């Protein structure tokens, strides 16, 4: 554990090395990146196991002294860090491997790997930071990495716009984070997490400041984790290469906001209002994004909205004092969402389109991708025995026991939506007839499928680290030695689990009725499952009823919400930009190029200063 600082260095080496020699290595750069991230992964695992038996390790050195203020730099390995290290390095390694096949033939292959290295370095650095300042630095660096990767296909106008948008939107959040951070520093006199928690515990900070700083920091998390209203960049970010979407915009970077809230959890728990804000924003985002996801036709956009929605879940969990639930869902989500994205990438790789209307019937053609995608879909829908089921269950229990039924039911409805749109996606892509001419559809190479298989396994088993049935190892371990984080496991009423299961099954069922069944007569599915088919056939009117009442209204709602997003949120953003630009215009108009005008401005400026001085000082007798 003493050498945990070395973990982020491997990807950094990869980045520098590929920057220098990537051109010569061509596609062999992939191996360099893979090998180095693999080292990170191994070492992360070592650290994780080490952490099971040893207490938290922390090392730091003075980095910068401003006046009497000592700023330090260092690293820390506590439970959360150790877990995050493994998640990040694992997903990163798998994505490195996968990209070897996906990016094959791209003439900027080595640059892609260099960027991946940079990003992984930043993300790992973020995770091991023991203080807010260092976190912030890596936080920005992560943003830079994301910016570069989203804009990787810079010749596409949309990609360029998306990269810019992502950077600027997240920066708006970052300003909140920065101010919150500075305020905390101002109050505590240190950026150290430990010192901040100590001050909070001792009541050295007034309640108002705690709330204010917590909310400001949360704004940073909102930007990074794509929460409402700063979420609009995340779907656009899908213009980046798909492995990037898997790594950054599903598994790691967007989870950084959740991580930040989790890392500062004691600060948040000290303020009811802050927690409530987190929970409400989270719940609202969860249902808001899920409802938008219902009508999307771009495979990656559906996944993007589902990411936003799932991140909302995590926030809801944290806001409901469910520390374990939030972190647990972060982990399971990382695996199954990465899986879904990689599988989606595999689909795109095969059919060269992202429009699900044009897909269909791929199950037979993609023998590996199909089942793996199904696993991911089942996991995210919260079907029992898959990882998402356990973590989502934890979140629901947390929301319920925290005593806010509205948020709880919002989360339940969001779960229903999730199951519905995910299976809609699945059915449209993999079942039925191909809706367009698909030539040369073939399964992806091994280098792409193997990472997916690994993630597929994890998407199933990751849930068993923390179950109400076999024990809550993960939860117990996460909160070990720190009461501020709450309990390892909260007992909830048994019906929650049943409701959750029912809701997700209902969603799946409905999706199947609408998108799977439609092609029953013609498809092989119909002949193999005649009993189901007949049963459903008799319930035809129910089907219509659903289609009319539930689906139509939700569809209407989601269209409305899309409009809100398009006009209100974007409008505000554009308005601010417009004001700034207007000011700039006026400013450059005064700048006429006339020498006399410049002198006049200076002199009048001086005169104004002097006159104000006279008036303010009361010298005018």
């Amino acid at each position, binding site marked *: 554990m003493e050498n945990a600082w070395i973990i982020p260095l491997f990807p950094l080496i990869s980045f520098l090395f590929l*920057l220098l020699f990537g051109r010569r290595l061509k596609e062999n750069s992939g191996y360099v990146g893979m090998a180095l991230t693999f080292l990170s992964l191994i070492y992360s695992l070592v650290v994780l196991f080490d952490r099971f038996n040893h207490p938290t390790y922390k090392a730091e050195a*003075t*980095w*910068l*002294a*401003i*006046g*009497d*203020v000592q700023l330090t730099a260092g690293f820390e390995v506590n439970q959360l860090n150790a877990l995050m290290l493994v998640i990040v390095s694992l997903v990163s390694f798998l994505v490195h491997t996968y990209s070897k096949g996906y990016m094959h033939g791209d003439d900027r292959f080595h640059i892609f790997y260099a960027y991946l290295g940079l990003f992984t370095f930043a993300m790992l650095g973020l995770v091991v930071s023991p203080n807010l300042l260092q976190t*912030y*630095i*890596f936080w*920005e*660096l992560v943003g*830079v990495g994301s910016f*570069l990767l989203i*804009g990787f296909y*810079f*010749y596409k106008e949309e990609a*360029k716009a998306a*990269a*810019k948008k992502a*950077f*600027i939107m997240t*920066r*708006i959040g970052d*300003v909140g984070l*920065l*101010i919150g951070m*500075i305020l905390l*520093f*101002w109050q505590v006199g240190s950026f150290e997490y430990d010192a901040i928690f100590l001050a909070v515990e001792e009541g050295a900070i007034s309640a108002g400041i705690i709330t204010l700083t917590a909310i400001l920091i949360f704004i940073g998390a909102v930007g990074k984790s794509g929460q409402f209203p700063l979420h609009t960049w995340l779907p656009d970010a899908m213009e980046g290469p798909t492995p990037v979407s898997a790594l950054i915009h599903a598994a790691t970077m967007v989870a950084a906001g959740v991580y930040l809230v989790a890392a500062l959890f004691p600060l948040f728990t000290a303020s009811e209002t802050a927690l409530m804000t987190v929970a409400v924003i989270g719940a609202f985002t969860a249902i808001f994004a899920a409802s938008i996801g219902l009508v999307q036709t771009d495979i990656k956009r559906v996944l993007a909205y589902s990411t936003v929605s799932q991140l909302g879940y995590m926030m809801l969990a944290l806001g409901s004092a469910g520390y374990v639930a939030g972190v647990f869902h972060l982990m399971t989500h990382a695996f199954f969402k990465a899986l879904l994205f990689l599988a989606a990438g595999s689909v795109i790789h095969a059919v060269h389109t992202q429009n699900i209307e044009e897909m269909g019937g791929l199950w037979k053609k993609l023998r590996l991708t199909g089942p793996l995608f199904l696993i991911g879909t089942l996991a995210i829908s919260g079907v029992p025995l898959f990882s998402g089921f356990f973590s989502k269950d934890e979140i629901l229990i947390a929301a319920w026991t925290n005593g806010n039924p509205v948020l709880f039911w919002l989360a339940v409805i969001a779960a229903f939506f999730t199951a519905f749109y995910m299976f809609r996606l699945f059915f449209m892509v993999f079942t039925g007839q191909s809706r367009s001419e698909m030539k040369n559809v073939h399964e992806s190479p091994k280098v792409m499928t193997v990472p997916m298989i690994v993630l597929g396994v994890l998407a199933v088993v990751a849930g068993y680290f923390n179950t109400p049935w076999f024990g809550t190892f993960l939860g117990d371990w996460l909160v070990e030695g720190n009461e501020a984080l709450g309990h390892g496991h909260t007992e909830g009423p048994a019906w929650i689990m049943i409701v959750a299961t029912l809701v997700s099954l209902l969603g799946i069922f409905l999706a199947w009725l609408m998108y799977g069944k439609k092609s029953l007569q013609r498809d092989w599915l119909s002949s193999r499952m005649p009993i189901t088919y007949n049963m459903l056939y008799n319930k035809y009117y129910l089907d219509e009823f659903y289609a009319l009442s539930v689906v139509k209204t939700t569809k209407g709602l989601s269209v409305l919400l899309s409009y809100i997003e398009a006009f209100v949120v974007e409008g505000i953003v554009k308005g601010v930009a417009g004001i*700034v*630009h207007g*000011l*700039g*215009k006026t*400013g*450059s108009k*005064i*700048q006429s*190029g006339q*020498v006399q*005008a*410049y*002198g006049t*401005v*200076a*002199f*009048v*400026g*001086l005169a104004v*200063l*002097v006159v*104000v*001085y006279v008036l303010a*000082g009361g*010298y005018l007798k």
Partner: protein
Amino acid sequence: MDLDTLLSFEWGAMAPEFIILGVATILSIVDLFAPKHLDRKIFGWIGFAGILLALASLINLVGLGPVSILYDTFRLDGFAKAFKILLLIGAALVMLLALSYKPKEGMEEYKGEFYYLLLAGLLGAMMMASSGDLITLFVGLELLSLSSYILAGIRKKHLPSNESAMKYVVNGGIATAFTLFGMSYVYGLTGTTNLIEMTNVLPNLANAQYIYILGIAFFMIFVGLSFKLATAPFHMWAPDVYQGAPTPVTAFLSVVSKTAGFVILIRILLTVFGNAFAGNSGVAAMTNFLVGMQDYIAFLAAATMIIGNVVALRQRNIKRVFAYSSIAHAGYLLVAVTAMSSFMFDALWFYLGAYLFMNVGAFAVIQLLTQHTDNEDIGVFAGLYKRAPWLAVAMGVFILSLAGIPGTAGFIGKLNIFIGALASEPAHYVLASVMIATTVISYFYYFGVLTQMFFRPAAEDEGEGGKIRVPVGLSIALVICVVATIVFGLFPNIALDFFHTNFEGFADFLQ
């Protein structure tokens, strides 16, 4: 005064100035007699060597206690040493830029003059840093100004260069008038030009009317000097002059000249006004003169930051963008001046140092890209990453540093200033907020340049411009700037420790 007294002074303390003066003189004489066909580039290298020599001798003097020659008309204290190091490094880098400057027209005949005028300007800046007497300070200021005027207009056949020089002279004249007028009031009140003596006289001024006049003098000096700093309300010349002047001169103006401006401002502000009326009970609300003035400086700082950053958004000419960016950076520095926290010196010194490296570096790249084509549109950066990846990466580092992205020296500098603004008593929340907000605005134009470099395809008709050859001098400057920007961003303590151990927080500032 006889020869013995004259010789009893430690003239060795002036060694750096003597070296610069000597080199400049020798160069000008040699230039006169050297054959016409001799490439004057060698002068540049000699000048560069001279600056390095001066820097070496200055570092040699670092351990020396405060030296005062002839009633403080020259004084070498920690403050002077620290900032002269910056000035010398800045000038050395600018010299490297100048060595590689080959515009299309109008410079060849005056290459030689260019180098020793640069040295003369540097000499003026150095005198501004190390004197405790208003007269010397003023003469130094004028020497710097005059050299700069001519440097700005040295591309005689280039119309924008002429225009820029003209504007610079006229505005400079107005600024000088302000400054001198203000100084004359201070002299009238105290009866001396010696700053330390003023410090002793001023606290005893009990008459409210004197204080009032001191206030007016303060404003005149401040506004006059704001010309050198390029801050509001005397910032408007900067975009036109920066645009028209030869690029190395622009770099000189934005780095050396600005640093010198801040040096003289701090010197006068803190010694003359800093001590006035402390604890004088006879006058109402006059605990400390400068504290009373903080609001005004804060207002100017905020105005400068807003104007600089907002107007920059509209610019297409790359040198204008950097002119406004330079105004904005001066605004950030004024925030440190406003706060007057206990580590104002550290913050200013570090920021000026960081700014020096990142800005000279950026101008080096700009110079390289614009000199062939005489095209200064922001579009010259298009597809730079494709054409010259190293150059693009270097420029990327400078831009990120200017924008204040963590990991670069610019970030540490801003952090210093920012914490200073909050840690002072009373804390300047509003000013700090303005600083953050304008920093965010600045991202738009900085990233505009980044987008050009990395995301735009290069223009098709790149004949000889397609392959960019980096001259020796320029590449040395670039490497130094990149390394410094990153090293001081990652390990700022190298610089700050050096600062603390050698200058002891300028304890000798008022001795």
